[in-house]
Every structure is written in C-alpha cells, then in structure tokens.
C-alpha cells in the first residue's frame, strides 16, 4: 500500500511511499483524504520519508491536502523531505502555507 496512516486525537500522519506522479497521485489522494476527513485532526503530517521520486504532482497533492485541512482550521506539515524535494516545494511557494521539514 502506498499510504500508511497513524493518528492520535491531535494529529493524523499520512506516510507516503514510492513515486508521486500524476498517475499515482490519484490513489494517494483518495486514501489520504479518507483519513484526514474522518479524523479532522488539528495537525496533519505528510511524511515523505519513503518517497523515492516526485514531480509537480506532489506539489499539487500537498496543496490539495492543505486546502482541505485549512477549511476546518487545521494546519499541515510536510516532513522528511530530501534537499531536492524541499527545493521543489520552495520553488512552488509551498513554504508560505505549510511547514516544510527536511530529513535530519
């Protein structure tokens, strides 16, 4: 499975894996949104630790989740980004709306 979900009352963590492109984003979106919308947790974490490739579809994916979480007053953070993934998200201006964290 491409998405693993863990949750506590305050936080839903969506752990993504594999390659995020336009083709794969559709499934990731469905699985992530099901978890996000059933919990409505104030903090949603998107964990990129196991993501091996991304193109701009991943940026659309993060923006889409941000819009949902923002609509009920929550916030989104994206964690475990490689330097390259971080740079792409910055290029898109994502840091203005979500918290971006690189891998240690």
């Amino acid at each position, binding site marked *: 499975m491409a998405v693993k979900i863990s949750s506590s009352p305050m936080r839903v963590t969506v752990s993504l894996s594999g390659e995020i492109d*336009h083709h794969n984003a559709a499934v990731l979106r469905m699985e992530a949104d099901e978890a996000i919308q059933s919990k409505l947790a104030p903090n949603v974490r998107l964990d990129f630790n196991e993501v091996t490739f991304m193109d701009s*579809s991943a940026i659309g*994916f993060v923006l889409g989740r941000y819009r949902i979480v923002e609509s009920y007053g929550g916030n989104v953070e994206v964690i475990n980004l490689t330097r390259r993934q971080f740079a792409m998200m910055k290029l898109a201006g994502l840091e203005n709306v979500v918290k971006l964290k690189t891998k240690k």
Partner: protein
Amino acid sequence: MKPINKMILKTDSRSINESFVRICVSAFAAQLDPDIEELSDVKTAVSEAVTNCIVHAYPDKVGEITVKVFIYENRAVKIIIRDKGRGIKDIKKAMEPLFTTLGGERAGLGFAVMESFCDKVSVRSAPGKGTTVNLTKTFVSRTYENE
C-alpha cells in the same frame, strides 16, 4: 553536432506510462555517467513533459507520444517529446509558473520544473497541430579525486 547515440520510443498517452517513459529516458541517459542528482533532474523534467501530453494534449482520448533521445560526446542529452494532440494556443502563457487551464490539483508548474532542471527548454505548438517539447541538459564533467 552529431549525436553519439540515439533512441526512439512511442507509447500511448496512458498515465501508467509516465513512470515507464521517465525510467527509459534516464536509463538511456545513464550512458553518459551523470550523477544521481543529474539523472533525477532528467527524470523529473521528462515526467512533467509526458504528463502534459496525457492531461493537456489528449484530454479525453488516448493518443500517441513520441520520445526521442540523443546523447552527445560533450555529455549533453537532448530529449524531444512530441504529441499530435490539441496543441497550445498561447505558449508563453502556458509556460508561466502557476498558470493552469485545468484547476483541480494541477499546480501549473510543469514548465517551471522543466526549466529549473534543464539547461534549455523550447516548445513548438499550434492549436490542432500537437506540441513538441525540446529539453537539453549537459552533465557536468566528473572529477575522480580518489583515483
């Protein structure tokens, strides 16, 4: 300049082929011994171009995508991605970051990403005539300090 090697690939504009095409192109470009970052640049740029064919060129049918790759002695790679789809009315506008005709979850960053990962991106297109995207990248010469 004459290429030292070339390959041509034709495939249907099915989204499952996005990964197939980018992997093929990067496997071919690997002959020039780029580093991992450079190869990721190629993969990402190709993924954007192929996605454009699938979502924009052939929005409601399956068409053909042709990908040609040339490699050169100076460690340059040229990738030509061509479709016979709907074409682009205003290329300059299409290439603007964050511009998208699709809304939804398309970020409008396809061309911006291609431009940031390639040395040169050029686009030829006309409505009804399809689109050709040229991507060029020269890999930096390697220095083998430990050898």
